[in-house]
């Protein structure tokens, strides 16, 4: 696995360009830095300074090459590359709390912003006024929207919120697109229509992800659970209470397999068994090198017993690649149906690229369906 330490501080968020030669990230401040790969090194090529608050979300549109960023200053900017300079355009989100996440739609003619104002701003370009405008989806969201993901039909939008729910809304904008055809989530999709709402789990929904086909949506919550709703099974929800600390990021890597990571600093595989409608843990993907087992003296054994009430020899240092929580996962190659590489960034300021084939050969019990 390729691990690169960019910073000594957390990477707040990141996004890749289309050919994966450049990464845009927020170094835990008000700026966005773009790094370009030069052989095995990374060089900083741009610094985007416009936000007055921490940048909480970045998304890079692969076809139009535009960046969109959002921050705690309640603003979003669309950035266009003119020559060798990124030029920002302010988008008025009409929110009175911090923006928390932003995603371009698949056709890149809209983007959605989740915020602490308990609503989602759907932004699109109004040609006649040469200006980005936005519409709000409010009901029935009761708390901060932490994560968003678009359905491949460019209309449906999944949102995870601090009110413990995962919801799917219609973000149909008649000004920029045709009426969508029916999906397994429903056929009538006027703007703001609630197509699906999960029943209460007990944790803030940190991350949410549609499968490549769009007929499944998965989310991770702060109560250490992973859930999946399957539109092909009348929106039945499968959930798994994990043995891990809460997960903060999740993505599909095939239609049946998910990779999630969070406060345990290590990506993990989960598998959805469609026939039984169940989720199961498939194993940790970060297997540390075997640390040398040295014997304990009797004195050390007694001290362990006294301090920790157990005499096991487990190390107090982290053996994982990331030395702090992983906060974001992105698919690099292969798409969400046949992912061959994915990327993780975390609070340790590091970025790691994981190769699925290498993982499969290195971890013999790993089964990716």
């Amino acid at each position, binding site marked *: 696995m390729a691990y690169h330490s960019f910073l000594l501080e957390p990477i707040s968020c990141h996004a890749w360009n289309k050919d994966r030669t450049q990464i845009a990230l927020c170094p835990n401040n008000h700026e966005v830095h773009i790094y370009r790969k030069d052989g095995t090194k990374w060089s900083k090529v741009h610094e985007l300074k416009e936000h007055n608050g921490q940048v909480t979300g970045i998304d890079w549109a692969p076809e139009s090459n535009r960046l969109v960023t959002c921050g705690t200053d309640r603003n979003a900017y669309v950035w266009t590359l003119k020559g060798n300079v990124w030029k920002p355009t302010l988008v008025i989100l009409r929110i009175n709390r911090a923006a928390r996440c932003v995603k371009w739609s698949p056709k890149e003619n809209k983007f959605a912003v989740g915020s602490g104002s308990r609503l989602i701003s759907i932004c699109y370009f109004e040609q006649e006024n040469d200006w980005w405008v936005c519409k709000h989806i409010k009901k029935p969201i009761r708390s901060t929207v932490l994560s968003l993901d678009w359905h491949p039909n460019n209309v449906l939008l999944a949102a995870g919120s601090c009110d413990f729910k995962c919801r799917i809304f219609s973000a149909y904008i008649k000004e920029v697109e045709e009426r969508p055809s029916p999906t397994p989530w429903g056929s009538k999709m006027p703007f703001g229509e609630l197509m699906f709402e999960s029943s209460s789990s007990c944790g803030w929904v940190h991350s949410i992800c549609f499968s490549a086909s769009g007929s499944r949506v998965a989310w991770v919550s702060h109560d250490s659970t992973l859930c999946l709703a399957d539109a092909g099974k009348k929106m039945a929800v499968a959930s798994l209470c994990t*043995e891990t*600390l809460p997960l903060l990021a999740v993505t599909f890597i095939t239609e049946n397999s998910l990779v999630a990571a969070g406060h345990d600093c290590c990506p993990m595989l989960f598998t959805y068994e469609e026939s039984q409608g169940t989720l199961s843990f498939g194993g940790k993907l970060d297997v540390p090198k075997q640390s040398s087992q040295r014997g304990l003296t009797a004195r050390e054994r007694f001290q362990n017993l006294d301090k920790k009430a157990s005499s096991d020899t487990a190390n107090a240092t982290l053996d994982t690649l990331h030395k702090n929580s992983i906060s974001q996962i992105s698919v690099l190659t292969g798409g969400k149906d046949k992912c061959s590489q994915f990327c993780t960034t975390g609070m340790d300021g590091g970025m790691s690229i994981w190769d699925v084939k290498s993982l499969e050969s290195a971890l013999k019990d790993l089964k990716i369906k």
Partner: protein
Amino acid sequence: TRRRTGEALRAFHTAIRSSPGNTRSQAVKEQAQGTMLKVLTSFKSSEIEQAVNSLDRNGVDLLMKYIYKGFEKPTENSSAILLQWHEKALAVGGLGSIIRVLTARKTV
């Protein structure tokens, strides 16, 4: 004796099964807590692991909730045995089971 162990195990499963799920009554909750504490403290250290392994995932989560409830209101000897229950339950439920004690909206 084996007969006594069997009784303790049966009492344990009964207490888990009959845990009041959705009650708002503080009195009902306290009665269940008292019963569970009695059952947990009646176990010998060597019997705990078998009892924990006989539970499913939801059972382990529920047990962990009662263990922490027991920590909240310690009696003279309860904490020592509860710590042993905690160690065995943690081995099966992982840190996730403790997280779910902290995030639960419906407490025991």
